[in-house]
């Protein structure tokens, strides 16, 4: 069986800057992978490269063994960074979810009965049925994440890609989102996400890639969240506190204020 994602010697750039060169990566079907790394290290570019939305200079991108450019019916869901969304745009939660079906063959603007049932069914499963008719700006951070998750899931993808799904939401919502993704992954879907929250990765994700313009290390969080690897990834000293099976990652250089001394 071909891997879900295979990057072979891929080189890409953002504007005039080369982001990574000759990158090779393999993600198996059904894996749940987190990509961590400092801001501007190329995490989002890597996701877009996987999805075939980024121009590459050389190399090959294969999804389930097929070159990404040759796949006509792309079976993947994508959730962008929610910070880039225009919340004042006049759409309801239902409209956002429906967009996931807009790549189909139907041209008429209104929903078919089958489409409406699919939206309502999925919204029910994700716990946002009651806010379907609400304007997207009038929902909570967790409901917004679930609305975009529903948009990504409604076309029954085999691969789900999320760009920083845990940023800008409180700890409770973070846990809810990661648990939800864990449940979806347990049904066989391959999931890749980027995040800045190392502690959430350590406690929720089975596999992690430390990235900084290239792969620094990859493996289980407990194996690769070491002082050496994280320092090489972030270029800054990071303390790891181990408590049984749990890893707590902390900044090693707290600020010192005069009035505290």
């Amino acid at each position, binding site marked *: 069986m071909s891997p879900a994602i295979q990057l072979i010697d891929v080189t890409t750039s953002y504007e005039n800057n080369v982001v990574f060169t000759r990158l090779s990566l393999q993600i198996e079907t059904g894996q749940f992978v987190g990509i961590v790394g400092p801001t501007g290290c190329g995490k989002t570019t890597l996701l877009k490269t996987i999805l075939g939305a980024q121009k590459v200079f050389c190399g090959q991108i294969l999804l389930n063994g097929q070159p990404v450019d040759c796949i006509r019916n792309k079976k993947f869901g994508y959730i962008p960074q929610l910070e880039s969304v225009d919340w004042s745009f*006049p*759409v309801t939660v239902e409209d956002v979810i429906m*967009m996931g079906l807009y790549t189909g063959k139907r041209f008429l603007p209104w929903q078919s009965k089958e489409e409406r049932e699919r939206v309502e069914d999925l919204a029910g499963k994700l716990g946002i049925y009651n806010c379907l008719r609400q304007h997207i700006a009038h929902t909570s951070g967790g409901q917004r994440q679930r609305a975009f998750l529903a948009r990504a899931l409604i076309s029954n993808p085999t691969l789900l890609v999320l760009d920083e799904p845990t940023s800008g939401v409180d700890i409770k919502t973070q846990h809810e989102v990661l648990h939800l993704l864990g449940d979806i992954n347990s049904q066989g879907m391959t999931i890749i996400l980027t995040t800045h929250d190392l502690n959430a990765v350590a406690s929720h994700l089975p596999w992690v890639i430390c990235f900084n313009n290239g792969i620094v290390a990859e493996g289980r969080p407990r194996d690769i969240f070491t002082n050496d690897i994280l320092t090489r990834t972030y270029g800054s000293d990071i303390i790891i506190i181990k408590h049984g099976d749990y890893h707590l990652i902390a900044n090693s250089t707290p600020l010192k204020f005069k009035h505290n001394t």
Partner: protein
Amino acid sequence: MQIFLEPLHYEFFRHGLIAAVLVGALCGLVGVHVVLRGMSYVGHGLSHAAFGGAVIGFVLNFNFYIGAGVMGLFAALLINQLTKNRKIKSDAAIGIVTTAIFALGVAVISQQRNLNKSLESALFGNILGITNSDLMIIGLVTAITMSIMFLSYRSLLFATFDQEAAQIFGIKTEALQLLFALLLTLSVIVAMNIVGVTMIAAALIMPAMTARMLTDRFSLMQLYSIAIGVVIGAGGMYLSYFFNVASGATIVLFGAFIFCLSVMIRHIRERITLQANLHRHGNLIHSHPVDNKHHNHTDEIKNDN
């Protein structure tokens, strides 16, 4: 009723009214995407480029619509291409491209030293000089644009809301952008005869922004915007007739009045909603088991002491 029927006895008014209603509906629909894409200035810019093209076309003995259309489309494509470079923002690209083409038109006029009537109409609007062939072109552009936008509703909505995600989901966003640029250019050119180059931005933006004040749903916003465009066009024409003021300017002023009205309606609706919410919360507080009448906190504190 007679007051509304009386102007219809004149052919120039009938033509003007039909043109204003069609262009109102057309600008209402296209304007929704213009406003939501944050391109409010583009209509203004494209009309200047189209005017420059019309002047060049006049010198080369081309039809007004051909000169304006070719140059307007060229400007739209050039803006589209320039904005792919992230260092050039769309407002800067619009400013450079369209003003340069407009300046070319002005330079050509200065050499010719006379302004053709159709160019004068394009500059300031001449709704009362609308001919049968003008009406046919306006009708054709309105029908084509509305049909294409109806059939592209889904992809246009997705791409306007989230272009990057739409592309990743498989929508051909670049082709869609070019298609929209073409429809926008055509709309701007037919609207030029109604309100003129100088006021076209208002014709595109006002119905859409008024509709935005009235609804939070995209589908309703499109319908409202078309209806408001029609009302502004027809209302402006009648007011222009009754007060004997230039039609283009009256349409724009009437549109501004309707927009102000919609802002007031939105403000009042928001206040009513806030009052209702406060009232509901007030009821919740009063219905709480801890009733202020029977539970005096001051007494409790005194007793504690």
